[in-house]
Protein backbone atom coordinates (compact mmCIF):
# COMPACT_ATOMS: atom_id res chain seq x y z
CA UNK A 1 0.00 0.00 0.00
CA UNK A 2 2.79 2.34 1.01
CA UNK A 3 4.66 1.73 -2.22
CA UNK A 4 1.48 2.26 -4.19
CA UNK A 5 0.87 5.66 -2.61
CA UNK A 6 4.44 6.72 -3.33
CA UNK A 7 4.11 5.50 -6.89
CA UNK A 8 0.88 7.43 -7.24
CA UNK A 9 2.61 10.56 -5.94
CA UNK A 10 5.51 10.13 -8.36
CA UNK A 11 3.15 9.53 -11.25
CA UNK A 12 1.11 12.59 -10.41
CA UNK A 13 4.18 14.83 -10.28
CA UNK A 14 5.48 13.32 -13.51
CA UNK A 15 2.14 14.08 -15.16
CA UNK A 16 2.19 17.66 -13.99
CA UNK A 17 5.87 18.41 -14.46
CA UNK A 18 7.02 16.27 -17.36
CA UNK A 19 6.06 18.72 -20.13
CA UNK A 20 7.92 21.53 -18.40
CA UNK A 21 10.89 19.30 -17.64
CA UNK A 22 11.11 18.22 -21.27
CA UNK A 23 10.90 21.82 -22.38
CA UNK A 24 13.69 22.89 -20.07
CA UNK A 25 15.93 19.87 -20.81
CA UNK A 26 15.77 20.31 -24.58
CA UNK A 27 16.44 24.01 -24.31
CA UNK A 28 20.00 22.82 -23.59
CA UNK A 29 20.01 20.55 -26.67
CA UNK A 30 23.22 20.60 -28.64
CA UNK A 31 21.58 20.15 -32.02
CA UNK A 32 18.91 21.67 -34.26
CA UNK A 33 15.81 19.81 -33.03
CA UNK A 34 14.39 19.75 -29.50
CA UNK A 35 13.56 16.04 -29.63
CA UNK A 36 15.26 12.95 -28.21
CA UNK A 37 17.95 11.79 -28.17
CA UNK A 38 19.56 14.42 -25.93
CA UNK A 39 22.90 15.21 -27.50
CA UNK A 40 24.57 17.02 -24.68
CA UNK A 41 24.24 20.38 -23.00
CA UNK A 42 24.93 23.79 -24.53
CA UNK A 43 23.97 27.37 -23.69
CA UNK A 44 24.05 28.32 -27.35
CA UNK A 45 20.26 28.74 -27.62
CA UNK A 46 20.09 30.94 -24.57
CA UNK A 47 22.80 33.13 -26.04
CA UNK A 48 20.83 33.32 -29.24
CA UNK A 49 17.61 34.20 -27.42
CA UNK A 50 19.26 36.92 -25.38
CA UNK A 51 20.80 38.36 -28.56
CA UNK A 52 17.45 38.32 -30.42
CA UNK A 53 16.25 41.92 -30.47
CA UNK A 54 12.63 41.08 -31.37
CA UNK A 55 12.39 38.57 -28.56
CA UNK A 56 13.94 40.92 -26.05
CA UNK A 57 11.63 43.71 -27.18
CA UNK A 58 8.67 41.35 -26.76
CA UNK A 59 9.93 40.39 -23.31
CA UNK A 60 10.10 44.08 -22.36
CA UNK A 61 6.59 44.63 -23.76
CA UNK A 62 5.22 41.70 -21.78
CA UNK A 63 6.82 42.99 -18.62
CA UNK A 64 5.38 46.46 -19.19
CA UNK A 65 1.88 45.20 -19.97
CA UNK A 66 1.91 42.77 -17.02
CA UNK A 67 3.13 45.37 -14.51
CA UNK A 68 0.83 48.14 -15.67
CA UNK A 69 -2.31 46.03 -16.12
CA UNK A 70 -1.77 44.28 -12.76
CA UNK A 71 -1.29 47.61 -10.98
CA UNK A 72 -4.49 49.00 -12.52
CA UNK A 73 -6.43 45.79 -11.78
CA UNK A 74 -5.35 45.78 -8.15
CA UNK A 75 -6.16 49.48 -7.72
CA UNK A 76 -9.63 49.18 -9.28
CA UNK A 77 -10.34 45.91 -7.47
CA UNK A 78 -9.26 47.48 -4.18
CA UNK A 79 -11.51 50.51 -4.64
CA UNK A 80 -14.48 48.33 -5.59
CA UNK A 81 -13.94 45.99 -2.62
CA UNK A 82 -13.57 48.96 -0.27
CA UNK A 83 -16.78 50.44 -1.65
CA UNK A 84 -18.74 47.26 -1.04
CA UNK A 85 -17.29 47.05 2.46
CA UNK A 86 -18.48 50.54 3.28
CA UNK A 87 -22.05 50.67 2.06
CA UNK A 88 -24.75 48.08 1.71
CA UNK A 89 -26.38 49.12 -1.54
CA UNK A 90 -29.66 47.74 -2.77
CA UNK A 91 -28.66 44.88 -5.05
CA UNK A 92 -25.12 44.56 -3.62
CA UNK A 93 -25.09 40.85 -4.38
CA UNK A 94 -26.09 41.45 -7.98
CA UNK A 95 -23.41 44.13 -8.41
CA UNK A 96 -20.75 41.86 -6.95
CA UNK A 97 -21.88 39.12 -9.31
CA UNK A 98 -21.61 41.47 -12.27
CA UNK A 99 -18.05 42.42 -11.38
CA UNK A 100 -16.99 38.80 -11.01
CA UNK A 101 -18.94 37.57 -14.08
CA UNK A 102 -16.11 38.03 -16.67
CA UNK A 103 -14.17 35.30 -14.82
CA UNK A 104 -16.61 32.73 -16.22
CA UNK A 105 -16.24 33.84 -19.85
CA UNK A 106 -13.46 32.35 -21.99
CA UNK A 107 -10.55 34.61 -22.94
CA UNK A 108 -11.32 34.02 -26.59
CA UNK A 109 -14.83 35.45 -26.26
CA UNK A 110 -13.58 38.38 -24.18
CA UNK A 111 -10.83 38.94 -26.77
CA UNK A 112 -13.36 39.04 -29.61
CA UNK A 113 -15.54 41.47 -27.71
CA UNK A 114 -12.54 43.64 -26.90
CA UNK A 115 -11.39 43.64 -30.51
CA UNK A 116 -14.73 44.98 -31.65
CA UNK A 117 -15.05 47.44 -28.77
CA UNK A 118 -11.52 48.74 -29.31
CA UNK A 119 -12.19 49.22 -33.03
CA UNK A 120 -15.47 50.92 -32.26
CA UNK A 121 -13.91 53.53 -29.97
CA UNK A 122 -11.12 54.05 -32.51
CA UNK A 123 -8.24 52.63 -30.50
CA UNK A 124 -5.72 50.79 -32.67
CA UNK A 125 -4.49 47.31 -31.69
CA UNK A 126 -1.53 48.05 -29.45
CA UNK A 127 0.10 47.25 -26.14
CA UNK A 128 -2.31 49.74 -24.57
CA UNK A 129 -5.29 47.82 -25.94
CA UNK A 130 -3.76 44.56 -24.69
CA UNK A 131 -3.19 46.10 -21.26
CA UNK A 132 -6.83 47.16 -21.14
CA UNK A 133 -7.80 43.62 -22.13
CA UNK A 134 -5.72 42.22 -19.29
CA UNK A 135 -7.35 44.59 -16.82
CA UNK A 136 -10.70 43.26 -18.02
CA UNK A 137 -9.73 39.67 -17.22
CA UNK A 138 -7.78 40.40 -14.02
CA UNK A 139 -10.03 42.94 -12.35
CA UNK A 140 -12.66 40.31 -11.36
CA UNK A 141 -9.93 38.16 -9.85
CA UNK A 142 -8.44 41.06 -7.88
CA UNK A 143 -11.87 42.12 -6.71
CA UNK A 144 -12.72 38.59 -5.55
CA UNK A 145 -9.45 38.21 -3.63
CA UNK A 146 -9.63 41.63 -2.01
CA UNK A 147 -13.35 41.54 -1.20
CA UNK A 148 -12.80 38.20 0.53
CA UNK A 149 -10.00 39.69 2.64
CA UNK A 150 -12.18 42.48 4.03
CA UNK A 151 -14.03 40.92 6.93
CA UNK A 152 -15.54 42.13 10.17
CA UNK A 153 -12.22 43.18 11.78
CA UNK A 154 -11.33 45.33 8.79
CA UNK A 155 -14.76 46.90 8.62
CA UNK A 156 -14.64 47.61 12.29
CA UNK A 157 -11.23 49.27 11.96
CA UNK A 158 -12.55 51.37 9.07
CA UNK A 159 -15.43 52.52 11.21
CA UNK A 160 -13.05 53.42 13.99
CA UNK A 161 -10.83 55.37 11.59
CA UNK A 162 -13.76 57.40 10.30
CA UNK A 163 -14.95 57.96 13.84
CA UNK A 164 -11.51 59.36 14.70
CA UNK A 165 -11.80 61.86 11.87
CA UNK A 166 -10.06 60.16 8.95
CA UNK A 167 -11.15 61.15 5.44
CA UNK A 168 -11.91 58.45 2.87
CA UNK A 169 -8.48 58.68 1.26
CA UNK A 170 -6.76 58.35 4.64
CA UNK A 171 -9.04 55.48 5.61
CA UNK A 172 -8.02 53.58 2.48
CA UNK A 173 -4.33 54.37 2.46
CA UNK A 174 -3.51 54.37 6.18
CA UNK A 175 -5.84 51.68 7.48
CA UNK A 176 -7.37 49.39 4.87
CA UNK A 177 -4.44 48.95 2.50
CA UNK A 178 -1.87 48.10 5.21
CA UNK A 179 -4.34 45.74 6.89
CA UNK A 180 -4.88 43.70 3.74
CA UNK A 181 -1.37 44.13 2.31
CA UNK A 182 -0.75 40.35 1.86
CA UNK A 183 -3.94 40.06 -0.19
CA UNK A 184 -2.98 43.07 -2.26
CA UNK A 185 0.35 41.39 -3.01
CA UNK A 186 -1.35 38.09 -3.83
CA UNK A 187 -3.78 39.81 -6.20
CA UNK A 188 -0.95 41.70 -7.86
CA UNK A 189 1.28 38.67 -8.42
CA UNK A 190 -1.55 36.46 -9.64
CA UNK A 191 -2.62 39.16 -12.09
CA UNK A 192 0.98 39.52 -13.17
CA UNK A 193 1.36 35.81 -13.99
CA UNK A 194 -1.95 35.69 -15.84
CA UNK A 195 -1.07 38.72 -17.92
CA UNK A 196 2.48 37.43 -18.48
CA UNK A 197 1.22 34.10 -19.87
CA UNK A 198 -1.84 35.37 -21.69
CA UNK A 199 -1.89 34.71 -25.44
CA UNK A 200 -5.30 35.03 -27.11
CA UNK A 201 -6.18 38.57 -26.07
CA UNK A 202 -2.63 39.74 -26.77
CA UNK A 203 -2.72 38.02 -30.14
CA UNK A 204 -5.98 39.72 -31.11
CA UNK A 205 -5.12 43.15 -29.75
CA UNK A 206 -1.49 43.69 -30.77
CA UNK A 207 -0.08 44.43 -34.17
CA UNK A 208 3.50 45.76 -34.39
CA UNK A 209 4.63 45.69 -30.78
CA UNK A 210 3.79 42.24 -29.51
CA UNK A 211 4.04 40.48 -26.16
CA UNK A 212 6.25 37.48 -25.55
CA UNK A 213 3.62 34.72 -25.99
CA UNK A 214 2.66 36.21 -29.36
CA UNK A 215 6.31 36.39 -30.41
CA UNK A 216 6.84 32.78 -29.37
CA UNK A 217 3.82 31.75 -31.38
CA UNK A 218 5.22 33.41 -34.49
CA UNK A 219 8.55 31.62 -33.90
CA UNK A 220 6.70 28.30 -33.62
CA UNK A 221 5.19 28.82 -37.05
CA UNK A 222 8.62 28.36 -38.58
CA UNK A 223 9.00 25.01 -36.82
CA UNK A 224 10.38 23.63 -33.58
CA UNK A 225 13.81 24.70 -32.43
CA UNK A 226 15.66 24.53 -29.10
CA UNK A 227 15.50 28.34 -29.26
CA UNK A 228 11.74 28.29 -28.59
CA UNK A 229 12.44 25.93 -25.71
CA UNK A 230 14.94 28.39 -24.30
CA UNK A 231 12.40 31.23 -24.50
CA UNK A 232 9.80 29.01 -22.92
CA UNK A 233 12.18 28.14 -20.12
CA UNK A 234 12.84 31.83 -19.48
CA UNK A 235 9.11 32.61 -19.39
CA UNK A 236 8.63 29.69 -17.03
CA UNK A 237 11.44 30.96 -14.81
CA UNK A 238 9.77 34.36 -14.44
CA UNK A 239 6.44 32.71 -13.57
CA UNK A 240 8.15 30.48 -11.01
CA UNK A 241 9.84 33.46 -9.41
CA UNK A 242 6.52 35.28 -9.15
CA UNK A 243 4.74 32.26 -7.70
CA UNK A 244 7.52 31.64 -5.17
CA UNK A 245 7.39 35.27 -4.06
CA UNK A 246 3.64 34.95 -3.68
CA UNK A 247 3.92 31.73 -1.68
CA UNK A 248 6.48 33.32 0.63
CA UNK A 249 4.22 36.31 1.21
CA UNK A 250 1.19 34.15 1.91
CA UNK A 251 3.09 31.72 4.09
CA UNK A 252 4.48 34.59 6.07
CA UNK A 253 0.94 35.81 6.61
CA UNK A 254 -0.25 32.35 7.63
CA UNK A 255 2.62 32.00 10.10
CA UNK A 256 1.71 35.22 11.89
Amino acid at each position, binding site marked *: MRILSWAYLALMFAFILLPVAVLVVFSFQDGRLPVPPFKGPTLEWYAKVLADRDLMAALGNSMLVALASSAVSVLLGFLAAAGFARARLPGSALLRGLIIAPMTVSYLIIGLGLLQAVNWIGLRPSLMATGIGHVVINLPLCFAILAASIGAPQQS*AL*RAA*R*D*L*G*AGERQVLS*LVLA*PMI*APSLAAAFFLSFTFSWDEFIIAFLLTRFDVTLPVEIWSMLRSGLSPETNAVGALVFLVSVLVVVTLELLLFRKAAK
Partner: protein
Amino acid sequence: MTADVEIRAVEHRFESFTALQRIDLQIAAGEFVVLLGPSGCGKTTLLSLIGGFLTPSEGQILIGGRDMTHVGPKLRPTTTMFQDYALFPHMTLRDNVGFGLRMRGRARRDHDAKAMEMLDMVGLADKAGRKPHALSGGQRQRVALARALAVEPDVLLLDEPLGALDLKLRRQMQDELKAIQRRVGTTFVHVTHDQEEAMAIADRIVVMNGGRIEHCGTPEEVYLRPRTLFSAAFMGELNRLPVRPAGDGVDSPLGPLAVAPGAGILCLRPENVGLQGGFSLGPARLTEAAFFGAHHRCHFAPLAAPELRLVAHLPQGAHPEIGAEVELFGRDPVILTEAA
Protein backbone atom coordinates in the same frame (compact mmCIF):
# COMPACT_ATOMS: atom_id res chain seq x y z
CA MET B 1 -14.13 68.78 26.98
CA THR B 2 -17.67 67.78 27.58
CA ALA B 3 -21.13 68.41 26.20
CA ASP B 4 -24.73 67.49 26.83
CA VAL B 5 -26.71 65.26 24.50
CA GLU B 6 -30.37 65.66 23.69
CA ILE B 7 -32.41 63.04 21.92
CA ARG B 8 -35.64 64.55 20.62
CA ALA B 9 -38.46 62.25 19.52
CA VAL B 10 -36.04 59.94 17.74
CA GLU B 11 -37.48 57.00 15.89
CA HIS B 12 -35.44 54.52 13.90
CA ARG B 13 -36.62 51.85 11.53
CA PHE B 14 -34.66 49.12 9.77
CA GLU B 15 -36.84 48.29 6.79
CA SER B 16 -39.97 46.90 8.46
CA PHE B 17 -38.53 46.61 11.98
CA THR B 18 -38.84 49.59 14.31
CA ALA B 19 -35.73 49.55 16.50
CA LEU B 20 -36.52 52.75 18.39
CA GLN B 21 -39.95 54.19 19.04
CA ARG B 22 -39.96 57.96 19.66
CA ILE B 23 -37.25 58.17 22.26
CA ASP B 24 -36.71 61.33 24.27
CA LEU B 25 -33.63 61.51 26.44
CA GLN B 26 -31.51 64.24 27.96
CA ILE B 27 -27.96 63.51 29.00
CA ALA B 28 -26.19 66.20 31.01
CA ALA B 29 -22.61 67.26 30.27
CA GLY B 30 -20.14 65.16 32.22
CA GLU B 31 -22.69 62.52 33.10
CA PHE B 32 -21.96 58.77 33.01
CA VAL B 33 -25.07 57.26 31.48
CA VAL B 34 -25.60 53.56 30.91
CA LEU B 35 -28.06 52.27 28.33
CA LEU B 36 -29.18 48.94 29.74
CA GLY B 37 -31.40 46.30 28.25
CA PRO B 38 -31.61 42.85 26.73
CA SER B 39 -30.31 42.27 23.22
CA GLY B 40 -32.58 43.74 20.60
CA CYS B 41 -33.87 46.47 22.91
CA GLY B 42 -32.44 49.25 20.73
CA LYS B 43 -29.59 50.36 22.99
CA THR B 44 -26.85 49.83 20.41
CA THR B 45 -29.00 51.50 17.75
CA LEU B 46 -29.36 54.52 20.01
CA LEU B 47 -25.59 54.61 20.53
CA SER B 48 -24.97 54.38 16.77
CA LEU B 49 -27.37 57.27 16.26
CA ILE B 50 -25.49 59.43 18.77
CA GLY B 51 -22.18 58.46 17.13
CA GLY B 52 -23.43 59.30 13.65
CA PHE B 53 -23.13 55.77 12.24
CA LEU B 54 -26.87 55.80 11.62
CA THR B 55 -29.25 58.62 10.74
CA PRO B 56 -32.59 58.48 12.56
CA SER B 57 -35.74 57.93 10.53
CA GLU B 58 -37.33 60.74 12.52
CA GLY B 59 -36.38 63.16 15.26
CA GLN B 60 -33.29 65.13 16.16
CA ILE B 61 -30.03 64.58 17.98
CA LEU B 62 -28.35 67.58 19.58
CA ILE B 63 -24.86 67.51 21.02
CA GLY B 64 -23.74 70.57 22.97
CA GLY B 65 -26.88 72.34 21.74
CA ARG B 66 -25.98 71.87 18.06
CA ASP B 67 -28.12 69.78 15.73
CA MET B 68 -26.01 66.78 14.72
CA THR B 69 -28.78 64.67 13.20
CA HIS B 70 -27.24 64.62 9.73
CA VAL B 71 -23.55 65.01 10.59
CA GLY B 72 -21.29 62.00 9.94
CA PRO B 73 -19.07 60.39 12.62
CA LYS B 74 -15.98 62.14 11.25
CA LEU B 75 -17.27 65.61 12.14
CA ARG B 76 -19.06 64.80 15.39
CA PRO B 77 -17.50 65.67 18.75
CA THR B 78 -17.98 62.02 19.70
CA THR B 79 -15.72 59.00 19.60
CA THR B 80 -16.64 55.39 20.09
CA MET B 81 -14.94 52.60 21.94
CA PHE B 82 -16.00 49.52 20.01
CA GLN B 83 -16.90 46.14 21.39
CA ASP B 84 -14.10 44.44 19.45
CA TYR B 85 -11.75 47.39 20.19
CA ALA B 86 -11.11 47.90 16.44
CA LEU B 87 -7.44 48.70 16.97
CA PHE B 88 -5.27 49.09 13.88
CA PRO B 89 -3.18 45.89 13.90
CA HIS B 90 -0.39 47.29 11.72
CA MET B 91 0.30 50.29 13.94
CA THR B 92 2.13 50.56 17.24
CA LEU B 93 0.14 51.53 20.31
CA ARG B 94 1.58 55.05 20.04
CA ASP B 95 0.37 55.36 16.45
CA ASN B 96 -3.00 53.85 17.30
CA VAL B 97 -3.61 56.32 20.09
CA GLY B 98 -2.19 59.24 18.11
CA PHE B 99 -4.27 58.42 14.99
CA GLY B 100 -7.14 60.78 15.76
CA LEU B 101 -4.86 63.77 16.31
CA ARG B 102 -2.88 62.89 13.20
CA MET B 103 -6.15 63.01 11.25
CA ARG B 104 -6.73 66.45 12.70
CA GLY B 105 -3.50 67.54 11.06
CA ARG B 106 -1.45 67.87 14.25
CA ALA B 107 2.32 67.60 14.00
CA ARG B 108 3.92 64.26 14.77
CA ARG B 109 5.60 65.64 17.92
CA ASP B 110 2.22 66.80 19.26
CA HIS B 111 0.32 63.61 18.65
CA ASP B 112 3.15 61.44 19.91
CA ALA B 113 3.27 63.44 23.13
CA LYS B 114 -0.49 63.24 23.60
CA ALA B 115 -0.46 59.52 22.78
CA MET B 116 2.17 58.91 25.44
CA GLU B 117 0.16 60.93 27.95
CA MET B 118 -2.96 58.86 27.23
CA LEU B 119 -1.06 55.56 27.32
CA ASP B 120 0.39 56.64 30.63
CA MET B 121 -3.12 57.30 31.94
CA VAL B 122 -4.16 53.74 31.15
CA GLY B 123 -0.86 52.31 32.46
CA LEU B 124 0.61 51.17 29.15
CA ALA B 125 3.29 53.80 28.51
CA ASP B 126 6.02 51.15 28.63
CA LYS B 127 4.41 49.27 25.72
CA ALA B 128 4.02 52.26 23.37
CA GLY B 129 6.19 50.67 20.67
CA ARG B 130 4.35 47.33 20.67
CA LYS B 131 1.64 46.30 18.29
CA PRO B 132 -1.88 45.32 19.44
CA HIS B 133 -1.46 41.58 18.82
CA ALA B 134 1.19 41.47 21.55
CA LEU B 135 -1.36 42.58 24.17
CA SER B 136 -3.93 40.82 26.33
CA GLY B 137 -7.65 41.55 25.97
CA GLY B 138 -7.70 43.92 28.92
CA GLN B 139 -4.70 45.83 27.61
CA ARG B 140 -6.20 46.18 24.13
CA GLN B 141 -9.25 47.53 25.78
CA ARG B 142 -7.25 50.20 27.56
CA VAL B 143 -5.57 51.16 24.28
CA ALA B 144 -9.00 51.52 22.68
CA LEU B 145 -10.05 53.78 25.55
CA ALA B 146 -6.86 55.85 25.27
CA ARG B 147 -7.32 56.18 21.52
CA ALA B 148 -10.92 57.31 21.83
CA LEU B 149 -10.07 59.85 24.55
CA ALA B 150 -6.90 61.20 22.87
CA VAL B 151 -8.91 63.47 20.57
CA GLU B 152 -10.65 64.95 23.63
CA PRO B 153 -14.19 64.20 22.49
CA ASP B 154 -17.15 65.92 24.12
CA VAL B 155 -18.94 62.61 24.35
CA LEU B 156 -17.42 59.13 24.56
CA LEU B 157 -19.62 56.27 23.40
CA LEU B 158 -18.85 52.80 24.75
CA ASP B 159 -20.39 49.85 22.94
CA GLU B 160 -20.34 46.92 25.39
CA PRO B 161 -16.59 47.40 25.79
CA LEU B 162 -16.28 45.01 28.71
CA GLY B 163 -18.26 42.17 27.14
CA ALA B 164 -15.22 40.11 26.10
CA LEU B 165 -13.38 40.31 29.43
CA ASP B 166 -13.53 37.75 32.22
CA LEU B 167 -15.46 38.64 35.34
CA LYS B 168 -12.57 39.73 37.52
CA LEU B 169 -11.02 41.92 34.86
CA ARG B 170 -14.42 43.35 34.06
CA ARG B 171 -14.95 44.48 37.65
CA GLN B 172 -11.49 46.04 37.66
CA MET B 173 -12.09 47.85 34.35
CA GLN B 174 -15.42 49.14 35.62
CA ASP B 175 -13.66 50.87 38.47
CA GLU B 176 -11.02 52.23 36.11
CA LEU B 177 -13.58 53.51 33.63
CA LYS B 178 -15.42 55.29 36.40
CA ALA B 179 -12.20 56.83 37.74
CA ILE B 180 -11.06 57.95 34.28
CA GLN B 181 -14.47 59.42 33.54
CA ARG B 182 -14.32 61.48 36.74
CA ARG B 183 -10.85 62.64 35.82
CA VAL B 184 -11.49 63.73 32.24
CA GLY B 185 -15.06 64.92 32.82
CA THR B 186 -16.21 63.79 29.37
CA THR B 187 -19.81 62.68 28.97
CA PHE B 188 -19.80 58.86 28.80
CA VAL B 189 -22.63 56.91 27.20
CA HIS B 190 -22.11 53.22 27.85
CA VAL B 191 -24.12 50.31 26.48
CA THR B 192 -24.42 47.01 28.34
CA HIS B 193 -26.81 44.18 29.08
CA ASP B 194 -25.22 43.49 32.46
CA GLN B 195 -27.21 45.18 35.20
CA GLU B 196 -24.47 44.78 37.78
CA GLU B 197 -22.05 46.57 35.48
CA ALA B 198 -24.63 49.30 34.97
CA MET B 199 -25.07 49.81 38.69
CA ALA B 200 -21.32 49.76 39.27
CA ILE B 201 -20.50 52.62 36.93
CA ALA B 202 -23.56 54.67 36.07
CA ASP B 203 -24.60 58.07 37.34
CA ARG B 204 -27.86 57.31 35.62
CA ILE B 205 -29.26 54.12 34.11
CA VAL B 206 -31.58 54.11 31.11
CA VAL B 207 -33.44 50.81 31.05
CA MET B 208 -34.60 49.99 27.55
CA ASN B 209 -36.90 47.34 26.19
CA GLY B 210 -38.50 46.81 22.80
CA GLY B 211 -37.27 50.12 21.43
CA ARG B 212 -38.60 52.18 24.33
CA ILE B 213 -37.19 53.65 27.50
CA GLU B 214 -38.71 51.80 30.44
CA HIS B 215 -37.09 53.73 33.23
CA CYS B 216 -34.41 56.34 33.55
CA GLY B 217 -32.87 57.15 36.89
CA THR B 218 -30.01 56.69 39.32
CA PRO B 219 -29.03 53.09 40.09
CA GLU B 220 -30.82 53.39 43.46
CA GLU B 221 -34.03 54.64 41.86
CA VAL B 222 -34.03 52.04 39.15
CA TYR B 223 -33.32 49.21 41.55
CA LEU B 224 -35.38 50.23 44.56
CA ARG B 225 -38.24 52.12 42.96
CA PRO B 226 -38.61 50.66 39.47
CA ARG B 227 -41.24 52.29 37.35
CA THR B 228 -42.20 49.22 35.35
CA LEU B 229 -42.36 45.51 35.98
CA PHE B 230 -39.83 45.00 33.19
CA SER B 231 -37.18 47.22 34.69
CA ALA B 232 -37.87 45.78 38.15
CA ALA B 233 -37.28 42.25 36.85
CA PHE B 234 -34.31 43.23 34.67
CA MET B 235 -32.46 44.92 37.53
CA GLY B 236 -32.53 41.86 39.73
CA GLU B 237 -34.47 38.95 41.17
CA LEU B 238 -38.04 39.54 42.30
CA ASN B 239 -40.78 37.86 44.27
CA ARG B 240 -44.07 38.67 42.62
CA LEU B 241 -47.49 38.52 44.23
CA PRO B 242 -50.66 39.56 42.43
CA VAL B 243 -52.59 41.90 44.73
CA ARG B 244 -55.76 43.99 44.76
CA PRO B 245 -56.87 46.69 47.21
CA ALA B 246 -58.83 45.55 50.26
CA GLY B 247 -59.65 48.09 52.99
CA ASP B 248 -56.49 49.66 54.38
CA GLY B 249 -54.25 47.00 52.79
CA VAL B 250 -54.24 44.60 49.91
CA ASP B 251 -55.50 41.12 49.32
CA SER B 252 -53.00 38.56 48.04
CA PRO B 253 -52.68 34.79 47.65
CA LEU B 254 -51.01 34.86 51.07
CA GLY B 255 -54.05 36.55 52.60
CA PRO B 256 -54.44 40.25 53.48
CA LEU B 257 -51.17 42.19 53.64
CA ALA B 258 -50.58 45.45 55.50
CA VAL B 259 -49.20 47.56 52.66
CA ALA B 260 -50.56 50.73 51.01
CA PRO B 261 -53.52 49.73 48.81
CA GLY B 262 -52.92 49.23 45.11
CA ALA B 263 -53.73 46.81 42.32
CA GLY B 264 -51.16 44.92 40.26
CA ILE B 265 -48.08 42.94 41.13
CA LEU B 266 -46.45 43.31 44.51
CA CYS B 267 -42.68 43.12 44.00
CA LEU B 268 -40.27 42.19 46.77
CA ARG B 269 -36.50 41.82 46.31
CA PRO B 270 -35.12 38.66 47.99
CA GLU B 271 -33.05 40.77 50.41
CA ASN B 272 -36.27 42.49 51.52
CA VAL B 273 -37.85 39.24 52.63
CA GLY B 274 -36.73 38.01 56.05
CA LEU B 275 -37.50 36.98 59.57
CA GLN B 276 -38.31 40.54 60.61
CA GLY B 277 -39.41 43.61 58.73
CA GLY B 278 -42.19 46.02 57.97
CA PHE B 279 -45.15 43.77 57.33
CA SER B 280 -45.99 40.13 57.82
CA LEU B 281 -46.16 37.71 54.94
CA GLY B 282 -47.57 35.03 57.20
CA PRO B 283 -46.08 31.68 58.16
CA ALA B 284 -43.99 29.76 55.65
CA ARG B 285 -41.91 26.62 55.54
CA LEU B 286 -38.26 26.57 54.43
CA THR B 287 -37.93 24.13 51.54
CA GLU B 288 -34.39 24.77 50.30
CA ALA B 289 -31.36 26.77 51.33
CA ALA B 290 -27.99 27.43 49.72
CA PHE B 291 -24.98 29.32 51.03
CA PHE B 292 -23.85 32.12 48.72
CA GLY B 293 -21.04 33.58 50.78
CA ALA B 294 -22.54 36.95 51.57
CA HIS B 295 -25.98 35.46 52.28
CA HIS B 296 -28.10 32.33 52.38
CA ARG B 297 -30.52 32.02 49.52
CA CYS B 298 -33.67 30.38 50.89
CA HIS B 299 -36.85 29.15 49.25
CA PHE B 300 -39.99 29.34 51.38
CA ALA B 301 -43.39 27.81 50.73
CA PRO B 302 -46.09 30.01 52.34
CA LEU B 303 -48.56 27.90 54.31
CA ALA B 304 -51.46 29.90 52.87
CA ALA B 305 -50.39 29.12 49.32
CA PRO B 306 -48.06 26.11 49.39
CA GLU B 307 -47.60 26.07 45.61
CA LEU B 308 -45.93 29.51 45.67
CA ARG B 309 -42.25 30.00 46.40
CA LEU B 310 -40.77 33.07 48.03
CA VAL B 311 -37.03 33.64 47.66
CA ALA B 312 -35.31 35.30 50.57
CA HIS B 313 -31.70 36.25 51.18
CA LEU B 314 -31.03 35.71 54.87
CA PRO B 315 -27.91 36.94 56.69
CA GLN B 316 -24.96 34.58 57.16
CA GLY B 317 -25.51 31.86 59.75
CA ALA B 318 -29.08 32.88 60.39
CA HIS B 319 -31.32 30.51 58.57
CA PRO B 320 -33.70 28.00 60.12
CA GLU B 321 -33.62 24.23 59.55
CA ILE B 322 -35.07 22.95 56.32
CA GLY B 323 -38.71 22.09 56.92
CA ALA B 324 -39.02 24.59 59.77
CA GLU B 325 -42.01 26.90 59.85
CA VAL B 326 -41.32 30.57 60.51
CA GLU B 327 -43.14 33.84 60.06
CA LEU B 328 -41.82 35.83 57.10
CA PHE B 329 -41.77 39.60 56.85
CA GLY B 330 -41.35 41.95 53.91
CA ARG B 331 -39.88 45.43 53.52
CA ASP B 332 -40.00 48.15 50.86
CA PRO B 333 -42.77 46.70 48.71
CA VAL B 334 -43.44 48.15 45.26
CA ILE B 335 -46.73 47.56 43.47
CA LEU B 336 -46.53 47.74 39.68
CA THR B 337 -49.11 47.09 37.03
CA GLU B 338 -48.48 44.43 34.42
CA ALA B 339 -48.34 46.68 31.39
CA ALA B 340 -46.92 50.13 32.01
